[in-house]
């Protein structure tokens, strides 16, 4: 049976490895044919910024690794409008196609899932 799983990505990339380890779980789950959707909450938004060049600090690109998501049919990438505004980021600064929702809509998204996990 395919489960609807929501992964909440709350960590900025590079300062902590949680962003990367969360993404590794997303890719594993997708490989096992689960129905994954991703919500970038708070600092998680920074994972999506265009033009990341982490070679400079000897780390692997987070956004680079995310480019594979559409190949796994993961196309529901949600971001929260208020988080973007708070961080002075426009959706055109993001390197992936996202769906922007309001904070008030997040609980609906959570409630519609079989399973939820946050990194």
């Amino acid at each position, binding site marked *: 049976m395919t489960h609807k799983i929501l992964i909440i990505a709350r960590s900025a990339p590079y300062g902590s490895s949680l962003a990367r380890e969360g993404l590794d*779980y997303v890719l*594993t*789950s997708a490989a096992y044919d689960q129905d994954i959707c991703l919500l970038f909450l708070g600092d998680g938004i920074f994972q999506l910024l265009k033009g990341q060049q982490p070679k400079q600090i000897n780390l692997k690109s987070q956004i680079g690794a995310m480019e594979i998501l559409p190949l796994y049919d993961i196309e529901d990438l949600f971001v929260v409008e208020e988080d973007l505004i708070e961080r002075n980021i426009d959706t055109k600064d993001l390197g992936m196609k996202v769906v922007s929702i309001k904070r008030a809509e997040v609980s609906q998204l959570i409630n519609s899932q079989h*399973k939820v996990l946050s990194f």
Partner: protein
Amino acid sequence: MKFSLLILASPYSQQGGLSALKFAQACLNQGHQIYRVFFYHEAVQTASFLQTPQQDESNLHQLWCELAEQHKIDLVTCIAAALKRGVLDKSEAKRYEKDGFNLQKPFELSGLGQLLDAQINSDQLITFA
């Protein structure tokens, strides 16, 4: 109910490992089942049998081993997260030509598929970070 635990917390730098133990014990006391405990991120260090806390400190490695043996609990350590952090069993040590190892039964190394399996097949997966 079937519970699984995901532990991310570093065993001696954060409280999450101690909280998870108390939670697991409370589950079992109430007749619930622990389907799996999955160690990821910093928590992979819990699997190392080399840890040597002071006598008046909890030995998290030992406590998990005891709980696992008493109640037949599956203790799975994420292999990718563990290897880079220097936690490996005899066969990985051999494969990578390392002079020693620090993980053995009841802990075992496996992939993230085991976490997905735990999430799908448990009623609740509780994260301790």
